[in-house]
């Protein structure tokens, strides 16, 4: 019997550090361990003893690319615990901020992390001379997405204006008009992006998992809704502990999550499968012309789902901004009386369902915190997919095997900082 190990010591173009070790016995894959080597970050422990009004600004630092989603999840959880109901204007502005965050995250993932793989370049930097127009389009889109977050949040990474029950300041008519123009300015480039990702051939590889996303009648929800599985089971986010099981693997610093002991998948593809009927017309048209069959179980299609989502989010951004322009925004003041309570909520982060759960004492001090990030929910599925795809690429040269495995992993858009509260691939 021959034992053999294949390792990628340092997975690149993923957010933070991880390593992949594949153990083989007679060419059969026994184990595929995605070892997150990022340091443990202890956010839930750090939150204990901190005050309710610090939670959002601390937890947004879990992740630099999805800080908007963490901010909003945290605020919602604190509000639930304190029984505060924000105004419709605040909710609409939060939805816009989330859209800005999703646009930024998807654009960085598609253009900076995934595109070079498909075009055969080492990085977007290497593409700058040969693919001049494409690189300029990437930078242009990324810049506008961050401008949108800046207008509402004050700055693109770790926005500061979103507050409990309100915004510290709200964009005036002129700023809303600027934002409306920015959304419109992105549209043509966004459609080209979706068409580009449609043109790439991806392996015919299916991965059957319990896909989960937020669901709400008539909506493609990011801000609220019930958690729904692809086969139609629904639950309130507050009951997450009944269905989701968190556990650790001995080789990794990341938390893994399963649904009723089944593998999960969350993110753009899951949202697509569950909510595609509520995409905007232009996004639906792109979906139809792509020939993508739904429900879809190929993790590679997550990239295309992200690209089409960009068009959808732009359209939604235009709608919400126009609504706010006609209603007008007023700065709100709010008086908060700290009290005890529990807040469990979920939002759609760019990579999927994100849960924040806090328990406050009567003085508003955090007694307990639990956060379940999207990547934690995807880790088991990524490992299982690697196990299954490896025999089909085993005959290839080592460099190609690494690239093919990285493509698969990157398709899930794992965010490694998040579950350490993620990749090096090592072939020993």
């Amino acid at each position, binding site marked *: 019997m021959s034992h053999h190990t294949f390792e990628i010591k340092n997975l690149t*173009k993923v957010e933070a*550090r991880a390593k992949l070790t594949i153990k083989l016995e007679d060419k059969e894959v026994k184990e595929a361990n995605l070892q997150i080597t990022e*340091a443990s970050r202890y956010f839930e422990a*750090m939150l*204990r003893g901190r005050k309710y009004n610090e939670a959002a600004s601390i937890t947004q*630092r879990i992740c630099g690319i999805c800080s908007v989603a963490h901010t909003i999840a945290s605020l919602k959880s604190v509000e639930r615990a304190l029984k505060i109901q924000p105004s419709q204007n605040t909710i609409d502005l939060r939805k816009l901020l989330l859209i800005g965050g999703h646009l930024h995250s998807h654009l960085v993932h598609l253009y900076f992390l995934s595109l070079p793989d498909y075009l055969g370049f080492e*990085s977007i*930097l290497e593409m700058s001379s040969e693919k001049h127009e494409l690189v300029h389009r990437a930078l242009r889109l990324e810049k506008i997405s961050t401008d949108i977050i800046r207008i509402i949040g*004050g700055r693109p990474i770790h926005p500061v204006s979103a507050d409990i029950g309100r915004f510290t300041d709200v964009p005036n008519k002129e700023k809303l008009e600027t934002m409306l123009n920015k959304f419109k300015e992105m549209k043509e480039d966004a459609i080209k992006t979706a068409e580009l990702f449609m043109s790439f051939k991806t392996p015919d590889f299916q991965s059957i998992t319990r896909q989960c996303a937020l669901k709400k009648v008539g909506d493609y929800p990011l801000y609220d809704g019930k958690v729904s599985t692809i086969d139609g089971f629904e639950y309130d986010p507050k009951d997450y502990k009944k269905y989701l099981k968190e556990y*650790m693997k001995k080789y990794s610093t990341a938390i893994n999550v399963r649904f009723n002991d089944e593998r999960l998948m969350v993110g753009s593809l899951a949202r697509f499968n569950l909510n595609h009927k509520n995409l905007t017309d232009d996004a639906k048209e792109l979906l139809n012309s792509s020939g993508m069959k739904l429900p879809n179980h190929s993790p590679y299609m997550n990239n295309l789902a992200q690209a089409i989502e960009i068009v959808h989010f732009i359209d939604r951004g235009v709608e919400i901004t126009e609504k706010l322009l006609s209603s007008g925004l007023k700065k709100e003041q709010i008086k908060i009386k700290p009290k005890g309570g529990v807040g469990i909520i979920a939002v759609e982060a760019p990579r999927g369902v994100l849960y924040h759960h806090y328990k406050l004492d009567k003085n508003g001090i955090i007694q307990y915190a639990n956060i379940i990030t999207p990547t934690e929910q995807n880790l088991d599925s990524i490992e299982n997919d690697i196990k299954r795809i490896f025999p089909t690429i085993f005959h290839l040269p080592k460099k190609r095997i690494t690239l093919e495995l990285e493509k698969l992993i990157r398709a899930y858009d794992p965010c490694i900082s998040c579950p350490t509260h993620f990749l090096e691939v090592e072939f020993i």
Partner: protein
Amino acid sequence: MVNLMKRSRIAFFGHTSCKGCFFEFLILEKKILEILKGAEIVHFELIKEYNEEGPFDITFMDGATSTKEELEMLKKIRKDSKFLIAMGTCACWGGIPSIKNLAKNLRVAYPGRVPQKSIETTPIDKHVRVDYYLRGCPINKDEAFEVIRDLLNGKIPREKDYCVCVECRMKGTRCLFEDGIPCMGPITYAGCGAPCPAIRAACDGCRGPLPDGNIGQEIKLLLDYGISREDIKRMFSKYVSFYKKSGEIK
């Protein structure tokens, strides 16, 4: 300092952090292409498949040091780098990840076993010499660009040694104190361009304490504005940068 005759080699490394500073740097947009005219980014695992080993001319070191592996890597990175920049509040001060040092029980963050032996989370200058502090949570991309531009032009970049209030004045932002909102701007390093007060959110001191900041007077102000001593301690311990100053809260 940096050899003008050949293309400078720039490297980016990340340890314990949210990597937000990398994403802030990537928003530089066309300026990145401008940098690439005079330099080469040879190591940046977030966006590059092939990452070269040292020596490096300019190294951006993001994140705090919180494991033995990170500590060993950090020492090697210092050895390989001509000019080492501590990138962001985690690298400069310890930042949000070092709240961990103050937490009573770390086990509660994980279901079951704590996954690895963690060492005290520290700023990188506890272990190695730093040539420039690029402060902020996140950094300011324009400051990062200026530092690279200066170095490529053979100039040593100068840190801004004044407080956030100066930048609020330059922008014409109304002082938050005047609206009854207590702010840490008076004792905090500038260089961020004061985006937070501009949107009526208080400066929370992410860039850390100015060496000659009047901490005593700031504490008095915060108390006058109705902030409790306990809450001031919390404010000072958020990025841990002001934590050592909490002894002055009497």
